């Protein structure tokens, strides 16, 4: 089931899949491509690294270019501050030929938590320069609103630490972000199971970004498909309208006039 009537708008492009896939950690390029195809995603992240003449196969440009209808979104991983992230974004734009950039600045290798101050500075500068900016952020509703005002195309709060599989540990904060946001809210990082993706969509998220959960699965293509189903299920459930919660039982069968 596709949500044809409600595409996700990021910048000036519409996406019919609400699953975004990272391309890191896959055992090999073929496995990665199979996972991308199985996920149905139209948006994948890539990273910039030094060209290595001894490992020309590391280059992802050729296999990714063969995927039809898939938008590349370079990230700024490795950047320690706003200036480095801006430079990485400019290099990424050179290579991808598009304005999409995932701003991520996480200088501490132990927890990889995004630096909110440097992230804000980079995102503001890049948005003013015409980039379609999707910043990876702590689940902070104040920061999210400021990034919206700075011209970001979406905000991407973390569910848990990168690669941890900790799930939607920030759910309450993400709900606050969703409540006030007029731009898409995308959960990025920390998810492990498709049920968590479904829950994020039921909560009101506009999309979900996963990488490790798919790349580190026993069967990455199978898990990519499962996440696609999770995202679609959660979105469809939200569109259908969840029933109200009650603290007490509400009978679903008549309780009166039995054998009277």
């Amino acid at each position: 089931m596709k949500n044809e009537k409600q595409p996700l708008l990021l910048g000036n492009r519409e996406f019919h899949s609400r699953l975004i896939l990272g391309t890191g950690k896959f055992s090999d390029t073929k496995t990665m491509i199979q996972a991308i195809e199985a996920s149905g995603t139209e948006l994948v992240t890539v990273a910039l690294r030094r060209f290595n003449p001894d490992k020309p196969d590391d280059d992802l440009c050729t296999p990714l270019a063969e995927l039809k209808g898939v938008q590349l979104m370079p990230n700024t991983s490795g950047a320690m501050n706003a200036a480095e992230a801006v430079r990485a974004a400019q290099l990424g734009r050179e290579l991808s030929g598009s304005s999409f950039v995932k701003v991520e600045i996480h200088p501490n290798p132990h927890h990889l938590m995004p630096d909110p101050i440097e992230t804000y500075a980079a995102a503001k500068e890049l948005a003013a320069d015409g980039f379609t900016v999707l910043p990876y952020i702590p689940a902070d509703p104040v920061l999210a609103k400021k990034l919206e005002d700075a011209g970001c195309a979406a905000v991407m709060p973390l569910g848990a630490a990168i690669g941890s599989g900790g799930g939607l540990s920030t759910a309450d904060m993400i709900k606050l972000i969703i409540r006030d946001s007029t731009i898409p809210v995308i959960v990025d990082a920390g998810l492990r199971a498709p049920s968590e993706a479904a829950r994020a969509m039921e909560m009101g998220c506009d999309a979900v970004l996963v990488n490790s959960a798919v790349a580190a699965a026993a069967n990455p293509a199978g898990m990519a498909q499962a996440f696609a189903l999770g995202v679609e299920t959660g979105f469809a459930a939200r569109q259908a309208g969840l029933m109200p919660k009650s603290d007490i039982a509400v009978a679903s069968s008549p309780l009166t006039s039995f054998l009277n």
Partner: protein
Amino acid sequence: MKLQVNGKEHEHTGDGTVAALVHEVGATPEHTALTVNGSVIPSAEWTQAKLNDGDQVEILTFVGGG
């Protein structure tokens, strides 16, 4: 001329343009982006952009990332 390419010393024997250096290291031009002394040089300028002795060049490409 002596350059620093991706953090290593590199003896450039070509015509001193960025385009010649990219060719020399074996990178595929359309899969490559680079900076010279920290400034991004757009690929359209590579055939004109001259390198100088001691320049620090970073040659980058896409790899997997989340």
